[in-house]
């Protein structure tokens, strides 16, 4: 497992993704709050997701004086969109991660809007170590099982690093339409 984590972190760092580790809720909260404060972010749009609640993120972020707007299914799509467009960061979970390419797999669903990880300039993703797969083959084992069970979501996004382009003179520039910064918090368990 530890070599897998090492490989994952190496792949992420090559993509300029910032990585933090959290053994439990306290460390996860500290990592998220610090990341937000460092960037002077005053409000986030977040998935309405058990993992984020379990880590106690909504309360901790609010306590730090930062607005935490969870995309609950009863929210109106217009309000959600307005919140996402103005948020300083999007906070989400990740359903799987692929170690060799540094890829996060995010499934959409109620409470898990696909654009929360896309529209804000910074994306913070929480992923459990147990969700780490060594390579594409490992991920596809999950996806074929999911497909057989009729569980493919309306949107599955594989995210590998921050948004980038090289369309002008072949010069690498980050932050085109998606986030310019991706922060991954690796959780124990």
């Amino acid at each position, binding site marked *: 497992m530890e070599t897998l984590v090492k490989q994952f972190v190496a792949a992420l760092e090559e993509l300029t993704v910032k990585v933090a580790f959290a053994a439990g809720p306290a460390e996860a909260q500290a990592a998220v709050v610090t990341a937000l404060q460092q960037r002077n972010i005053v409000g986030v749009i977040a998935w309405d997701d058990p993992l984020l609640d379990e880590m106690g993120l909504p309360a901790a972020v609010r306590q730090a004086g930062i607005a935490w707007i969870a995309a609950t299914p009863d929210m109106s799509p217009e309000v959600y969109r307005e919140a996402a467009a103005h948020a300083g960061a999007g906070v989400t979970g990740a359903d799987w991660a692929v170690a060799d390419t540094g890829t996060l797999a995010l499934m959409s669903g109620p409470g898990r809007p696909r*654009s929360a990880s896309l*529209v804000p300039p910074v994306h913070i993703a929480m992923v459990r170590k147990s969700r780490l797969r060594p390579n594409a083959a490992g991920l596809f084992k999950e996806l*074929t099982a999911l*497909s057989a069970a009729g569980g493919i979501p*309306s*949107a599955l996004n594989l995210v590998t690093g921050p948004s980038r*382009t090289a369309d002008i003179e*072949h010069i690498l*520039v980050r932050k085109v*339409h998606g986030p310019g910064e991706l922060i991954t918090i690796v959780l124990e368990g």
Partner: protein
Amino acid sequence: MSGMRDRVKAEMPKVGRRRAVGDATRHHFHTRRKQWAKMTEEGRLQPLRDWAKAVKDQALNNNQQVVAKFQQSVEALGGHVHFAATAADCVRQVVEIATQHGAKLVVKSKSMATEEIHLNPALEAAGVETVETDLGEYIVQLAGEPPIHIVGPALHLTRYDVAELFEKELGEPMSTDPEALTAVARRVLRDKFLNADVGITGANAGIAETGTVVLFTNEGNGRMVTSLPRVMITVMGMEKVIGTWADFEPVLTLLPRSATGQNMTVYVSAVTGPRREGELDGPEELHVIVMDAGRSKLLGTEYQEALRCFRCGACLNCCPVFRQLGGHAYGTTYGGPIGITITPLMKGFVEHADLLDACSLCGACTEACAMQIPLHHLIRDLKAERAASAYTSGWERLLFRVWSWAWSSAGRFRWTGKLARLLAKPYTQDGYLTWHPGPLAAWGAERDFPAPAARSLRERWADLEREVNP
């Protein structure tokens, strides 16, 4: 339409652009080779290529069934599938859907299929503002040019060109720094994403078992287009559909590594049906138009292999002709080896057969093709078909008949050698020809052509034999 020769003449003087194309294609040639070398070392390149080929062959051999399954899956989720036999049908269907929804603004993610059918002018004519959102596509849209390369649409334009285009469009002074220019595009296009009524995409793959449309984008525009507008329309070539999620694995691994040399494209988005109960974003209405536009003419023929193409651009990047000319000289949506193979077959042989001249049959493309399309073999066969057809001029055929007659006998072959030496003698200086007759004049203007040797190898061979076996 102008012919290949006219277009080449028009492109040749654009030295700066041609140099940019050369630099970019060489760069991507090397990034692909690096990735392939790594995969070879890991022992997985050839197995992956074989797997990808098998997946695509299986899907193409059963194209009707696979597309029917795809349709069934999309419709089960409440999406709509349409079929377009021709490019014109496809354009009409997209315009109809857009206008039915009263669309005023359409955002598009990068799609060669919609380039192929010239969708944008038709939408604009129907009063729908149509905005390309891939940075490169946005730039060439502002420039009023077609993409020069299927992966790098604007790779021929400099930062100064881009700044000028942005200044003209937005009416404000621009920095020429690529980072600043990208930030401007982000700001301008963000507004478009948030206000668009319809999003139009192409598809890198369709997955039949779940009715999924897959898009690869680095910038995130593909995700924006499929997340924010209320209506999503995907235009997908009929050859793009594969059977299952398992089938998608070799495509996912090979495509980015062969196209840009990345381990993985930043965003791979798999959209399965419209927005579901309780979701806050994604299209409420989803249409997929499965487009033929000449593709089915290749099915069941030896050229079916060309439909395995997943548009990575590797054959463009390695092609000595493409590197010199860039995509505009081809005058077609798809340039380079894959373009000159599929365009005459899909869009009419007689009108496009002169594209076949843009190939020296060197075989670099066949080597570079992840999907193992025997490109230069197919091009050779197309050239043979052209030669056998009435397309070739009577003079050309006569010339080749005479040549074939002359060199089919040893005596006549020797005689033509003697004749050539005799004719070349007055024009020989220091072992090189000083005059190039007729069509060779342009070629000879910048190159030296060695004069025939005073004695042929056969003559010298006879002497050598006498020396060795006296």
